[in-house]
């Protein structure tokens, strides 16, 4: 396949919309990307604005995008040709970053999903956290807000911890009460944040072990860029004597959108092929 064409992936997450413009071909290439916080706005509108933003910045028209795919909570995105499920797209995105990926952990705002991959980025098995919010990115964001910290700085602050204090790992509500107690007991912000990271990391490691995960493990989603989180996962793995290689990628937050754009390209070619077969039959 020598010709290339444009696809777009739009990942509507719990807290932000990620959009990726891709040039699809034998060697797909990310042309441009954009993240927009939802901030209590209508996610469909934010997604629509993100699409327009990328189109405008790259001087493209919507019609030039041959497959616009949504993922995550993106069913409400109006301008799209198809929708793929977040596990499918995160798996594909991780496989794009690291073709030897065997396991992917998508740490999203509301859920953590661990997936085992086949060689082509196909999801072979998965496990996800339950309904409780204490194992999710949103939980970390809430705690950082209580402590007056920006979410972007909690990773670095967590690295400064010398005596981390773990909260109750059972329930987000109880954990938040724990944090209030910690503050009144004078526990430092780095130690609280590190404790929170260790608590979430504990859940992730339990997911990995119950899935019988294999190395390398790729972290995707917004939390994958949080250095404190990555370090906490590595610490818990070490404590538990598990030997997994943990990898992240600078574009980890875009894994879902990249996966959607890649699968979109695949589907576009597939549909063309089907159409051509049908025309031959008729």
């Amino acid at each position: 396949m020598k010709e290339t064409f444009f696809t777009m992936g739009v990942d509507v997450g719990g807290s932000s919309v990620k959009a990726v413009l891709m040039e699809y071909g034998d060697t797909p290439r990310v042309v441009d990307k954009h993240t927009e916080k939802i901030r209590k706005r209508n996610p469909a509108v934010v997604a629509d604005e993100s699409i327009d933003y990328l189109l405008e910045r790259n001087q493209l028209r919507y019609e030039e995008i041959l497959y616009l795919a949504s993922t995550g909570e993106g069913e409400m995105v109006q301008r799209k040709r198809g929708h793929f499920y977040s596990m499918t797209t995160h798996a594909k995105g991780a496989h794009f970053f690291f073709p030897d990926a065997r396991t992917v952990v998508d740490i999203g705002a509301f859920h953590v999903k661990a997936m085992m991959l086949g060689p082509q980025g196909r999801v072979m098995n998965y496990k996800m956290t339950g309904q409780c919010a204490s194992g999710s990115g949103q939980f970390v964001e809430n705690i950082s807000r209580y402590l007056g910290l920006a979410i972007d700085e909690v990773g670095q602050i967590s690295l400064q911890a010398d005596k981390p204090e773990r909260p109750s790992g059972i329930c987000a509500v109880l954990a938040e009460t724990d944090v209030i107690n910690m503050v009144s007991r004078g526990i430092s912000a780095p130690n609280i944040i590190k404790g929170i990271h260790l608590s979430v990391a504990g859940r992730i490691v339990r997911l990995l072990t119950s899935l019988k995960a294999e190395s390398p493990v790729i972290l995707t989603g917004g939390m994958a860029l949080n250095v404190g989180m990555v370090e906490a996962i590595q610490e818990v793995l070490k404590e538990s004597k598990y030997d997994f290689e943990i990898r992240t990628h600078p574009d980890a937050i875009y894994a879902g959108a990249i996966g959607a754009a890649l699968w979109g390209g695949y589907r576009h070619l597939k549909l063309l092929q089907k159409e051509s077969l049908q025309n031959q039959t008729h």
Partner: protein
Amino acid sequence: MKSLEEILEYTSQLAFDLEFRHARDWKAEDPTRVLIGYLPIYFPREIVHAMNGLAVGIMGAGDRIQIIKGDAYYQSYICHMPRGIIELALNGNLDNFDGFIFPSICDVIRNLSGMFQILGKGKFVKYLDYPQNFLSHVGGEFYRAELMHVIQEIEKLNGVKLSPEKLNQSIRLYNRNRKLIEEIYTIRQDYPWRLSAVDLYHLLRAGLTLPVEMHNELLETVLIHIQEDIGEEMDKIKVVVSGAFCEQPPVGLIKTIEIAGCYIVDDDFMLGSRWIEGDVDDTSDDPVGALVDAYLSQSTFSSAVYDIENPKSQRLLELVRRRKADGIIFAAPSFCDPALLDRPTLQNACEEAGIRYISFQYHENTGQFKVIQEQVGAFSDSIKLWEDMPLEAS
């Protein structure tokens, strides 16, 4: 001509009018008119129509009312639909009905007919036992006697005698109704985006509370609209939904299946309206006999019917092939014995034929669809993305 949006807005209101206002107003126009309520799945409405009556489908209360009294009538291991219907009856929503038909589906419906009798609802309550023998001189005779019983009960109510001419005319109208519905399904098979599954559901469900003449007009108009190139195609798989013939899925569930990446190209939601395949003879001197013959030889397949000579698993596979569907979604109400007993047989047939499927259960008042959405979405992705990628190759 009304716009498609106007019709769909009207039918969405009508489909879930649990006060049955339209039927009540229709009855009030003429003192000889009668309202006969019938439960899922099938009842030959032609008979009621020919006797100056309106057969109104009572499909349950869905997720539209809170069940308070109904729960006292049924154990926790019984499906949800009869609770809603008892609730409606006890709340007075069915007070304008003159009689009730309970087609034989399962023990729960039989018990519900008994409860209606004890509660004194309607002027007659008939448990209509459908034959499971398809020989004309055995099951046919039995079924004719059952229909004659209904005819006598209606005659007692309004004094209207059933004439062959009138019944043939009614059969003609219902033939038209079935044909129009089938034509809509045929268009949707190739262009499902022109009319969503939810809109189609409302359109058909509204038809259970309207005189057939009015419903035919609506169907004709919708048909004209969807023959046009409207809507925009999305990259979704095509599925047949099976198992939801009695207790109806909540509209949110139908919507969820569609937004999760599937076009529903056939289903058994409003199966009674599509029960007879093809036309019933409308020229017979014995139109009751024509209805009996149609039941014996032109019935669709369902878990409430045990036609050993014509296995339903084969008929389901045939339907999937005819609709060019990519897979089947087995969606059955919790505790629905007929649907859930049939499921393993149907699934085995799918596996042998290499047809992909998923299964889940619902209640008519299910409110959380996230898990179903994930399941349906993963099903859609697996067909779209890995249809040519065998598991071994991965």
